[in-house]
């Protein structure tokens, strides 16, 4: 029965109390999504698994600091995994081979239309607000989020000075916040 299944929020609360079975269930229910997040940035399964391991250890350690009023459990956990992934990516000092081309399509298409359920309102609002940005600002935001592009990577990708990229990001992020209104 679906009702009997604990929510991710409840599982995190149990993890905070040291419940390893709850942690195992949290892993079962989130690992494919979080592995997707790690793999998106790392591009290598082995590296992505190391990132995921570090990420889940942090999730376990800091479960008590999860605040259900500021983010969903998956958004909170994804932020932790992304932080590990970004640190590893920057530490490796890897200059990303900038292979993304226009032929690969608009990065906005990465925000898939949900097949089964209606999109949560947060996603609908985010998508609408991203669409309202200048195209270059939007591309920078999405390539950074999904692919882990740095300012320098974006500069190379779009053949613009780093200062210009910084300005695009500055304006894009402020417009996005204003559009989302929270």
């Amino acid at each position, binding site marked *: 029965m679906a009702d009997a299944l604990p929510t991710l929020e409840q599982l995190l609360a149990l993890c905070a109390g040291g419940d390893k079975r709850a942690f195992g269930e949290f892993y079962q229910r989130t690992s*494919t999504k979080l592995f997707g997040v790690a793999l998106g940035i790392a591009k290598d399964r082995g590296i992505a698994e190391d990132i995921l391991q570090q990420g889940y250890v942090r999730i376990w*350690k800091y479960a008590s600091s999860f605040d259900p009023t500021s983010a969903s459990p998956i958004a909170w956990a994804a932020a932790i995994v992304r932080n590990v992934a970004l640190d590893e990516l920057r530490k490796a000092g890897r200059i990303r081979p900038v292979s993304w081309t226009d032929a690969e399509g608009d990065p906005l298409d990465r925000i898939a239309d949900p097949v089964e359920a209606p999109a949560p309102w947060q996603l609908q609002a*985010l998508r609408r607000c991203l669409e309202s940005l200048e195209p270059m600002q939007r591309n920078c935001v999405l390539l950074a989020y999904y692919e882990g592009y740095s300012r320098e990577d974006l500069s190379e990708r779009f053949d613009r000075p780093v200062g210009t990229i910084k300005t695009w*990001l500055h304006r894009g992020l402020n417009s996005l916040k204003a559009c989302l209104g929270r």
Partner: protein
Amino acid sequence: MTDEDRTALAGEYVLGTLSLADRRRVEAARADDIGLDREIIAWEARLGALSEQEAEATPSPELFERIAAAIATTKSSGFGKPQATARPRINRGWAFGAGLLVVLGGMAGIAIDRTLRPAALSNSLVAVINRDVTEPALIVRVDLASGTVSVRPVATEKPENRDFELWYVAAKAAPKSLGVIDAKALTRRAVKTEIANGAILAISVEPIGGSPTGAPTGPVIYSGKLIGDPDR
């Protein structure tokens, strides 16, 4: 730093466009700059919907064994200082949560500030229970003469299907339950526990009806210290 600069810096931190050195600078800065910290948390929430749309991929089946082995030697709930987590511990309530778990583990007492002047003439103790350093969440008043405690919520946010339970935590003692409290309306009840000036009150998130074990089982989300009420 202007608000716009702060928004952009926090946004770039969450997006991940900063260099490693700049990431470390932002993490150091957010510990002192509550506005920056809040903006980072806000960006994680704003952009989190993008991660929910990320294509799924299955890690190798052995990975969970490695993680289980790693957490076997790691305590849950924020011992030590987090590094580059989604949220650094700048919040007294959460810091106390970690302290409370130390008490529960029987490993050490929490340090209670004993330098507080005793309010010998006060017949009433009051605690402002905070969500963070600036925003009071509840105000608790203990009337020592009548032995009653009243809890007035100011700005609480309670998860659905959970109850708030109030705990009295004296130095080097296990927390004592003062009962489940109403998150929206004034709760007043008699207390049998001896209440001391300078002790800590904490609120944890528990299953409906309160902790099944008699000790806090959920996260401590609010806490504050009882002091003599200067108005009484």
